[in-house]
């Protein structure tokens, strides 16, 4: 009898230790420390708790060459519902978790990494809320940063070059600058179309949507998803790669429901009108962002295209995106340069 209750107690304690703190997700006030949510069994090693499932996007947003690890949590007994070309409708109590980090040396990942921040999107009763937790120097806890934080970081890149970044942990308002859709906070990545790829789970490799169905996180999806491609994979066409890149990097804001609606420049994957895609489109309220150029995209002339000029620039009054970037994404610039130069004039 005694043994049984001890066993029960231990099981209970372990479950208690690794159970997600659902109330903390729902409550109005954010806890001070990331660990309070219990999203991770081992936060330093970023080992997730049960029901906290890792995922990847086919193409992801450039954030100053940082690496990202993503997880989704959906409370027991609930499901996210599918919406074509939109983010899943996640149930109240869900959490999207994203950790930003830099490897010490990109040539040898076993040398370890430095965690920058873990961003949370929490689905409360009233809608999504965004918050970020910045990791301490000891890397054993992340603390809430309502007003954001600046972290100076250095790493060694693939070429063996020493790189440095003035990394900005966004404040609550800056989260909304990208995550606003019709003025409400909205996730960007987890649309079915962005998840439609194989992921190497601990228990084997399988398509992420299939995995989510098996976990009962979503119902079966039986329509064509309009899936983007990995912009960095050369087997795909230049056009598909560029449109996929622009979609995930620009399309959340440059869409009729997004923050850059007033520009008339729309770069999401579903846009088909050439003027709105920027082809021979005159700038509107671009100011010195135009760099003296007359069109967002001047076909055949990448050097005369505002879109590329603003991707290259690191001047905050010129560059795009407006936040979340302080370095130039050279590989993407090269890609889009080629795309514009190959357009029929």
């Amino acid at each position, binding site marked *: 009898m005694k043994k049984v209750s001890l066993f029960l107690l231990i099981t209970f304690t372990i479950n208690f230790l690794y159970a997600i703190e659902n109330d903390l997700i729902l409550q109005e006030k954010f806890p001070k420390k990331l660990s309070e949510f219990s999203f991770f069994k081992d936060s330093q090693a970023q080992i997730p708790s049960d029901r906290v499932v890792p995922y990847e996007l086919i193409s992801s947003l450039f954030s100053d060459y940082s690496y990202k690890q993503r997880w989704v949590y959906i409370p027991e007994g609930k499901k996210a519902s599918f919406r074509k070309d939109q983010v899943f409708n996640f149930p109240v109590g869900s959490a999207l978790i994203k950790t930003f980090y830099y490897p010490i040396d990109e040539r040898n990942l076993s040398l370890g990494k430095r965690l920058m921040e873990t961003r949370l999107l929490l689905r409360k009763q009233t809608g999504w809320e965004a918050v970020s937790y910045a990791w301490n120097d000891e890397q054993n806890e992340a603390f809430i940063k309502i007003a954001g934080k600046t972290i100076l970081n250095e790493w060694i890149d693939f070429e063996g070059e020493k790189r440095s970044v003035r990394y900005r942990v966004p404040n609550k*308002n800056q989260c909304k600058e990208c995550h606003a859709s019709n003025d409400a906070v909205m996730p960007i990545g987890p649309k079915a179309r962005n998840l439609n790829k194989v992921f190497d789970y601990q228990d084997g490799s399988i398509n992420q949507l299939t995995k989510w169905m098996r976990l009962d996180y979503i119902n079966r999806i039986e329509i064509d998803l309009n899936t983007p491609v990995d912009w960095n994979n050369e087997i795909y066409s230049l056009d598909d790669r560029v449109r996929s890149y622009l979609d995930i990097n620009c399309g959340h804001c440059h869409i009729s429901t997004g923050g850059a609606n007033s520009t008339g420049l729309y770069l999401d994957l579903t846009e088909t009108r050439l003027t709105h895609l920027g082809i021979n489109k*005159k700038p509107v*309220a*671009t*100011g*010195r*962002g*135009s760099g003296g150029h007359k069109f967002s995209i001047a076909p055949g002339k990448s050097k005369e295209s505002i879109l590329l000029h603003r991707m290259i620039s690191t001047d905050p*009054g010129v560059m795009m995106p407006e936040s979340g970037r302080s370095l130039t994404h050279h590989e993407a610039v090269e890609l889009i340069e080629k795309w514009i130069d190959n357009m029929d004039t």
Partner: protein
Amino acid sequence: MQNLFLLFLLSVCAFALEARQLLLGPSENSSEEIQEALIEMQPGDVLTLEPGEYFFEDGISLDVDDVIFEGSGINETILNFENQISGAQGLLVTSDGVTLRDFAVLDATGDAIKVIGADGINMVRLRTEWTGGPKETNGAYGFYPVESRDVLIDACVAIGASDAGIYVGQSRNIIVKNSIAQYNVAGIEIENSYYADVFDNLASHNTGGILVFDLPDLPQQGGHNVRVFRNKAINNDTDNFAPEGNIVGEVPRGTGIIIQANSDVEVFDNDIYGNGTVNLSIVTYGYATDDENYNPHPKSIQIHGNRFGDGGFDPDINTGELAAILFELSDGNMPDIFWDGILPMNQMIFGQPDKERLVISNNGDATFLTLNPIKYILPFFDPVERDIKAYEGKVRPLPEVILN
């Protein structure tokens, strides 16, 4: 009765207790303190900045409804962004019912104060300035409310913007008054907007003083119901320093007022002089567009009771095409008021409906020039017409703008 009064007192107290007064002064961490306060404010709160200069490396933003963010005076509380490293504007407001007053935003790397999608925004006694004088590297806009409604800009000062000092875009229900716009490319610009009253302002030493524009391919277009009155659009004499590509980059130095592609614009009781290219021009949007919903022609424009002084004495024929064409057509005798005369094809042939016709009345001895587009196309005809009397007509006053 007594009970009622008590109830009233109680409710006042309850409200007063809820609203907080927050006070911050300059310190080493003031940029963080201010941003944190702007995030943690609750509706009804007032955040006051003491006199002093506050330095920022990152843009700041406000997303809480119904709060007041104020300084202690346009020359006393200075938000200085000369060392800005991140953020596309100095101050960004994305919430409703906000009042900003009594401070200055200096040397922002992009726009100074941008307001997106606000339902109610009051900007009162504020200054936006780039302190190094007119330069292409200055930020684009001083005051930049966009996609907003019930916009008030009152007693503000805008200096040195490389696009427009005060720019209201794709908004409705707008009042811009008692303000000063100087040394900008455009002083005051109302673009793709509905129901705007622009009055008692001074627009001087800009490239162009006051612009009322409408552009294609945008979510809100068909700008209409704009009243421009009791302003001084004078001595606009700064060389155009806008980066190329922008529509204002084509405004010639020395333009008082331009109306482009709007309908129902009433310009009255203004002082318009000292503008070296042209005091007032009314023009069609000059680029090809395949936007079928866009009307590139100005219509129902009324210009009356203005006081015109000297103009056209130093035309800037090197910027854009307007000044050069006008200079050639007028033989150097530049008019006070210019209309390009371009009408939709059907109206050129069958005439313009009465209510859409240009009305020019009671403008003293102002001179006028327009083009007869049919004669312009045909050889051997002089397309220039200067008879201002032909445009006299009964004024149909536009309604006053009332903010909610």
